[in-house]
């Protein structure tokens, strides 16, 4: 009984250790930013001035509603990631948003006020082509979905299918457009490339084919951009080869009417594919008779088609974007032209006459660092005096959204590029101006110039400055303390950036897939700088390296971004200052061969920049920076530089050594046969990790020494055969220098996705158990044994004994989306695993639970070691969620960084959202707690002082009285 009780006490003590959040800490040092991704479709709610709702669908398979006044999310729904949830089309009508997703698999209708589903339909398989509303008698009643082989009509109210018809000749004809002018006939347009056009008219009521027309047009390529439906059911196409427009009335036409652009006084730019932009404001009515023809990258023309005659309305030169907007019965053309690099002019023109509307000019000044504009969504409304007012949502090439109100006021900006962060680093903030001055005072040059007296004077003056700064700091603290906390807002700007005493604030440098770089201040999430790198393809792999930290004043910190193009394999470097985002003047080397691997060496050049080694596909090495000093250092230590290349496609791991002349030589190779298994994860250890204790003290007072091999790689493979009985997961621990396989294990009846964390002397990995259909964690720990072979240094080349490997597995009662471990300055604090769950929670799981020495039957010794007895299932407790209810959707990465406090680890989880917080795996043992009761302690102290004073006085009186007696 006693034993059990003691065990319970121990267990509860262990559980209390785990990191958790107190309610009053909410929002104190954590923040979350929610994003939606690159907007594909955007719609404004009702066409009134008071409307606030903006509905967007994005490439991240998100449908969301944004408050158009503030830019905050009203609600957001996430579909499956990847192509299965890809949003093909979005239509908006009244309060309903109809979304086709998953390549035409799902048809959903969303209630846009509350963010719930009206209905959901599963459609037949078939590749999606087009979707549109179909109206009849002035009301929108149906949704038409065009697939490669069939067209189906659904009721808007409940999603039920009205009819579905197979399309004739769908093997040869690509159907691309559906049109209905509200007259009970549905036209489906298809084409056979460079041959003919097929127009099929369906009866809206029963889906019967009314007519089927073949029109010869040998120039046709695509209906989507080259053609549009204009006016009362007229097809208008533009062709670049013959430089002419073709028109055809869908109802009656049998042949295309050709109108040359020359006859309309239009000149198409050489080699430009013309586009036609038309509008159909109400699907139950005919399309508008006016349309835009794009003649060049910055040249548009507004045309109209009336009585089968095309006539020009107005020409727009030097125009970036054009779009139509409708409010009430008024349709306007919105024209965006660029004023200079960052300023844009927006004008409204009447679509019917082409006249410029008065008082509609809006000039938008964008902050530098934004990409060029790509799209404009206009919210037009009728003002009280019946004139047209508008607000514009601008979208830039780097996915940011800028909402502009007349006359040129930017209401909000959303940096949607941050929905797809690929890589990030945290950099210490620089010293303040005064601190920097102090540092500069003792520079070598200064000492020679000034002499002794000058130096003394300088010292005194700098001390004075420090004193001044300290007093002003105290004053500010005193001043702020009187105000309630909510009012105190420390505005962080690039000027006021300074390191705090515990180095808890850092600069987060984020690299996004769109090629935009961000610098965020970590404690508040304020974006301090942004820099757009144009021309980066979204598939390019990006790697961020910190070459010089802020510690080397007056040299500016330096980061290097490696940009590898997926197709060509060529790599370019972008060198910049991570604090200000400015491009560095240092010229990076030009790399003519694809780079396979980059290595950041601990050696530094004379300017304290760490050396980056780049290995190309001929195994030649380029050093950056490559000054003479660096090359000398490299020659000196070349014999101790090894690197390992992994070719996952061929299942090959190969080790190389560096020669003095920067050539390389292969020294080992491990081949994992790709017919059986494929390499899925290769994980080394973090370079900035410190291990505080070399071993573990066991219950019998002996020490179990850890096997701390910094060159160890954990390689995880998955079987090619995915059958549940035969699939397996293999784990290999390979020494990266010698290629020796330290340990290998096979987990049968297991498959990926696999998440691995490799740190200190342990590897934790998570896999799916196909037999029991559950997720399992497995931990491997490596020990040298009770004797240490060489306690001063570790060498991979001199290790006669293989390490002892301990392993244990546990059930984890949830799938996971990410796995990472906490890290602290000196490694004294106990470690926690940060587990991203699909629900958006981030679980802080003590590493104690993943300890292969957890005994099945607790003994006296195991209790003394604080080992928790083995339990097959790992607990998930909501108190361990470090982000409480601030769920982080689709976690793609968790970045951990040590702070200046040993107890504190900075955590950034990024995915669709970004969440930053601090975790205290062993509680805050090195600072006073937040709830430290200053009042109580000071009142007790004061009370004691008074008590001593009073008793002293009393004692004196008593002594005096006794003396008198």
């Amino acid at each position, binding site marked *: 009984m006693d034993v059990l009780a003691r065990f319970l006490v121990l267990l509860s003590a262990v559980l209390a250790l785990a990191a958790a959040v107190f309610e009053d800490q909410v929002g104190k040092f954590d923040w979350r930013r929610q994003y939606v991704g690159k907007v594909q479709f955007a719609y404004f709610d009702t066409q009134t001035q008071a409307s606030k709702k903006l509905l967007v669908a994005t490439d991240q398979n998100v449908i969301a509603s944004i408050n158009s006044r503030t830019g905050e999310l009203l609600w957001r729904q996430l579909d499956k990631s990847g192509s299965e949830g890809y949003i093909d089309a979005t239509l908006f009508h009244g309060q309903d948003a109809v979304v086709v997703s998953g390549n035409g698999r799902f048809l959903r209708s969303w209630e846009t006020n509350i963010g719930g589903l009206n209905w959901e339909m599963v459609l037949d398989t078939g590749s999606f082509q087009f979707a549109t509303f179909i109206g009849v008698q002035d009301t929108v009643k149906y949704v038409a979905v065009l697939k490669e082989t069939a067209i189906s009509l659904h009721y808007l109210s409940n999603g039920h299918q009205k009819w579905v018809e197979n399309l004739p000749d769908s093997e040869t004809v690509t159907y691309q457009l559906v049109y209905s002018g509200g007259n009970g006939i549905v036209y489906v347009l298809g084409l056979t490339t460079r041959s003919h056009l097929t127009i099929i008219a369906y009866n809206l009521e029963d889906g019967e084919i009314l007519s089927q027309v073949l029109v010869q047009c040998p120039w046709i390529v695509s209906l989507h951009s080259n053609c549009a439906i204009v006016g009362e059911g007229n097809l208008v196409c533009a062709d670049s080869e013959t430089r002419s427009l073709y028109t055809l009335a869908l109802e009656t036409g049998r042949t295309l009417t050709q109108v040359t652009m020359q006859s309309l006084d239009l000149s198409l730019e050489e080699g430009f594919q013309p586009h036609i932009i038309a509008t159909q404001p109400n699907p139950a009515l005919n399309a508008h008779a006016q349309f835009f023809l794009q003649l060049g990258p910055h040249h548009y023309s507004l045309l109209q088609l009336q009585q089968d005659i095309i006539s020009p309305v107005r020409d727009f030169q030097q125009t970036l974007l054009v779009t139509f907007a409708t409010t009430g019965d008024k349709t306007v053309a919105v024209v965006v032209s660029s004023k200079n690099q960052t300023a844009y002019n927006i004008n409204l023109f009447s679509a019917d006459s082409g006249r410029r509307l008065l008082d509609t000019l809006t000039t938008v000044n964008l902050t530098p660092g934004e990409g060029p504009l790509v799209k404009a969504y206009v919210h037009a409304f009728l003002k009280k005096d019946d004139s047209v007012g508008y607000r514009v949502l601008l979208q830039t090439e780097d996915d940011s959204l800028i909402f502009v109100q007349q006359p040129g006021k930017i209401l909000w900006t959303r940096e949607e590029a941050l929905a797809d962060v690929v890589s990030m680093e945290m950099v210490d903030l620089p010293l303040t101006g005064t601190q920097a001055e102090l540092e500069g005072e003792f520079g070598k040059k200064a000492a020679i110039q000034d002499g002794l007296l000058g130096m003394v004077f300088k010292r005194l003056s700098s001390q004075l400055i420090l004193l001044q700064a300290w007093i002003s700091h105290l004053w500010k603290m005193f001043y702020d303390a009187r105000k309630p906390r909510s009012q105190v807002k420390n505005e962080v700007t690039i000027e006021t950036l300074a390191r705090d005493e515990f180095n808890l604030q850092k600069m987060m440098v984020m690299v996004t897939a769109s090629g935009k770089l961000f610098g965020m201040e970590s404690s508040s999430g304020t974006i301090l700088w942004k820099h757009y790198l144009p021309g980066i393809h979204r598939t390019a792999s990006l790697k961020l390296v910190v070459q010089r930290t802020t510690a080397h004043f007056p040299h500016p910190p330096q980061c290097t971004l490696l940009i590898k193009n997926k197709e060509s394999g060529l790599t370019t470097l972008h060198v910049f200052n991570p604090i200000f985002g400015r491009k560095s003047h240092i010229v990076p080397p030009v790399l003519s061969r694809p780079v396979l691997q980059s290595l950041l060496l601990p050696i530094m050049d004379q300017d304290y920049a760490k050396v980056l080694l780049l290995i190309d596909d001929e195994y030649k090495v380029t050093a950056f920076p490559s000054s003479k000093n660096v090359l000398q250092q490299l020659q000196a230590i070349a014999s101790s530089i090894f690197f390992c290349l992994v070719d996952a496609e061929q299942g090959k791991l190969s080790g190389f050594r560096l020669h003095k002349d920067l050539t390389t030589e292969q020294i080992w190779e491990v081949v994992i046969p790709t017919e059986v298994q494929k390499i899925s994860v290769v994980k080394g250890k973090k370079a900035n990790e410190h291990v505080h204790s070399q071993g573990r003290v066991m219950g019998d007072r002996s020490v179990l020494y850890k096997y701390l091999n910094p060159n160890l790689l954990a390689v995880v493979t998955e079987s090619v055969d995915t059958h549940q009985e035969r699939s397996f997961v293999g784990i290999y621990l390979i020494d990266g220098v010698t290629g020796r396989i330290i340990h290998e294990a096979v987990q049968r009846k297991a498959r990926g996705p696999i998440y691995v964390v490799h740190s200190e002397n342990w590897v934790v990995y998570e896999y799916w158990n196909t037999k029991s259909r559950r997720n399992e964690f497995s931990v491997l720990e490596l020990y040298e044994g009770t004797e240490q072979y060489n306690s001063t240094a570790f060498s991979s080349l001199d290790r006669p004994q293989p390490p002892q490997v301990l392993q244990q597995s546990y*059930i984890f009662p949830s799938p996971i989306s990410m796995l990472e471990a906490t890290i602290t300055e000196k490694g004294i604090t106990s470690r926690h695993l940060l587990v991203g769950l699909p629900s958006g929670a981030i679980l802080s799981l003590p590493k104690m639970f993943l300890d292969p020495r957890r005994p099945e039957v607790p003994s006296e010794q195991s209790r003394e070691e604080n080992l928790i007895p083995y339990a097959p299932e790992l607990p998930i407790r909501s108190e361990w969620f470090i982000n409480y209810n601030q769920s982080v959707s689709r976690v793609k990465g968790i970045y951990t960084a040590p702070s200046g406090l040993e107890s504190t680890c900075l955590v950034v989880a990024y995915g669709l959202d970004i969440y930053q917080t601090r975790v205290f795996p062993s509680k805050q043992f090195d600072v006073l707690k937040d*709830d430290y*009761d200053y009042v109580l302690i000071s009142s007790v102290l004061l009370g004691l002082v008074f008590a001593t004073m009073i008793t002293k006085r009393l004692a004196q009186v008593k002594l005096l009285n006794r003396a008198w007696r």
Partner: protein
Amino acid sequence: MWLALCTVFPTLWSVIYGFNEQDLPAVSGQPNGDRFKIEGRAVVPGIRAQDWISSARVLVEGEEHVGFFRTDGSFTVNDVPFGSYVLEIVSPAYKFEPVRVDITSKGKMRARMVNYIKTSEVIRLPYPLQLRSSGSPSYFLKRETWGWTDFLMNPMVMMMVLPLLIIVLLPKVVNTNDPEMRREMEQSMNMLNPNHELPDVSEFMTKLFSSKSSGKSGSSSKTGKSGPMKRR
């Protein structure tokens, strides 16, 4: 290794219910196979559906299949091939228990409790699913609050305060000025301490300690003085 020891795999139930484990594929996603739908309804007691559904989703086996809530709190997860799945409702504000749903290749559905340790144990749940929130999850730890009662009820404080009370109050209760009483007390003291020759233990101790501490302080002062001497 340990895991295998702790788990038992009875396969009896599969026969009884006409389910066959082997039918259930490990990898879902056969494009030609039949697709089924999982239906259900979730309720948060006391909260209208439209107030919580916008931040909630239905996840089947992670994010393998996703379902959304209708405005009345019901949901359907479409396009699910046969197999066994854990269905979970994720909502940051409300907690729901996960459910395991089995679908046979013929489309027969069954819902049961999730048990990761005994994976084949069947405790049936109604299908279509009826899920009820068990309230809000507790994300926060309670701060240790400080109150006078906690302080006073502390055993250390009690041990100190009670003797103090006795020392202060007892002489007042018993009148020491009464000569009869004093005599009585002296008698009782004598009875307690019959042997006058023996020295009082407490006295002895105080003497001992006082002499020791004085000696110590002397020696420490000596070393204090000798310190700088040596350094010189």
